[in-house]
């Protein structure tokens, strides 16, 4: 079970999913954010500040990427180009519990 979850695709997917959800909420409910203070940027030739709506644009994109990673890990537990290595990895992990000091 742990070995199954310890798939880098699941890990990346999980983190990006959490980030995506948090950012989407932050974009839709901007009142939970601090007040934006543009003082430091007042000499800028172009006003670059993109606004809090950008949070949910990026949040939704991250959710999309996260879902892709998780689906990939679920639908293809073992990658096409790793022949016979996954079983070896599993047995190593089991031995690891006994051997580690």
């Amino acid at each position: 079970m742990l070995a199954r979850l310890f798939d880098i695709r699941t890990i990346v997917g999980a983190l990006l999913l959490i980030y995506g959800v948090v950012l989407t909420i932050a974009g839709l409910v901007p009142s939970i954010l601090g007040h934006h203070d543009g003082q430091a940027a007042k000499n800028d030739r172009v006003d670059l500040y993109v606004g809090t709506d950008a949070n949910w644009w990026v949040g939704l994109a991250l959710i999309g990427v996260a879902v892709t990673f998780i689906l990939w890990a679920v639908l293809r537990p073992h990658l096409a180009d790793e022949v016979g290595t996954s079983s070896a990895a599993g047995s190593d992990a089991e031995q690891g519990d006994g051997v580690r000091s």
Partner: protein
Amino acid sequence: MLHLNVSALDYVLIAIYFVFVLGIGYVARSQIASSLDFFLSGRRLPAWVTGIAFVSANLGAVEIMGMSANGAQIGLATMHYYWIGAVPAMLFLGVVMMPFYYGSKVRSVPEFMRRRFGPGAHLVNAISFAVAQILIAGVNLFLLATVIDALLGWSKWVSLVVAAAIVLTYTALGGLSAAIYNEVLQFFVILAALVPLTVFGLIKVGGWSGLRDKVIPTATSDGSVTATAHEQLTTWPGQALSGFTNPVWSVIGIVFGLGFVLSFGYWTTNFVEVQRAMASHSMSAARRAPIIGSLPKMLIPFVVVVPGMIAAAAIGDMIHLKSTGSGTVTYNDAMLLMIRDILPNGLLGVAVAGLIASFMAGMAANISAFNTVLSYDIWQQYVVKDRPDRYYIRVGRYATVVATVLAVFTALIASGYSNLMDYLQTLFGFFNAPLFATFILGMFWKGMTATAGWVGLVAGTLSAVTVFILSKVGIVNLPGQGMPFLAAAAAFIVDIVLSVLVSLVTAPAPREELVGFVYSETQVSILSDPDDAGKSWYLRPVPLAAVLLALVIVLNAVFH
């Protein structure tokens, strides 16, 4: 000035990241049964993971801040570091050199050196590499502390010690697997910040054409212009980068110095990166790792160099610095200013988490390469031999602790240098350019002897140091970043010439010892792999490399 308006939500995002980082270290620990698991992830990772780690190990914050600084200062010429420098070298590593590294089953680049040239060259290589890793890890740590201080207002010592403790925890627990998994994670988090930053920045300045119109010349404090607006919008002949006034010499300096010598030396012999590829599960995967990595590598400058250019065209403090040569910010702040001025709270947290992540991943990459070389190449080879395998895992864990403590002290030394890129490249020039000369000659010429191996390395490194000293005392004068190119070229030529001369008067190793290490003595197929048959082109190293080479040539042509 750089201080960010961080909200509670941003800290939540940063905290979530730390939970993941430490969690990876904890879980990776259960997969370690042998020293090979600890130092090389048991050689069982798929190519796309080692490929991303290959790039990500180098995509530290030093790179992100240094290259956006270059973008702000000299503009598109910075692309040469990627398109002439890194990418061709990575493809060369995958196609030509990886069959020797992976096929000979060595566990590190210095070990290849020992098996090919014996202990002389091995000691020079292993010790210089180990020292360099500590130095670079220290630079990373110092920068992290400086940036966190500027952005969040934390005490430098607190962030320095906390970051070092986190890196120590997960690399000591999980070994290379933990380092690699965190590199892959860091890669996606930093992209989640950099891609939106670049897109929003470009929209705000009016797209690519709006940016082109707003680029201003780079001046020094005495009023002389070091990079005109036109120079910043073209990549060739890149005089602002190389510092040569003659355009022909500038092109030669960039192609030979930066491309062929400096970058090939760095990317093909630097164990930090090569170690990632060596952790792959098969020869084909090990060869594809740097080849797959070259795709993100050729696209990364669009979200690193371009934001630097936007900063220099739009942000008041940076424009002031660029037109007068002085001000309250430095070029290294370009990316931080972009984060400050563009991103709202929320995305700000992702960006800060990404920056901290890239500092830590960069440092972990150096430390994990260091502990492998120290344990396998120095300790097991010369100090305590023939102990059970488990003993060397413990050595690796202690080496990780020692390396982290030394890096914290090195962080203090790093504070004396202002221009990070120049400093790091100085190091690369000293260590890597002669290495590439020795490796490539040793791999393809069986007559090269053990004595030639170490003599070439030492003389090459010394000639790089000589060029460095000559430029410091003003005898050689290159105003741009051309000095490391010249030092690397000198090291390469001196190494090749001396290696050939010494080989002619000393006796080569017996042929049976060269099997696996020299082309003519090895059953190695560079143009195909035995397990290639019946696979799609993107699963075969050579066709994949050919497609990516074509792509980088197109990029060079489009942005000339």
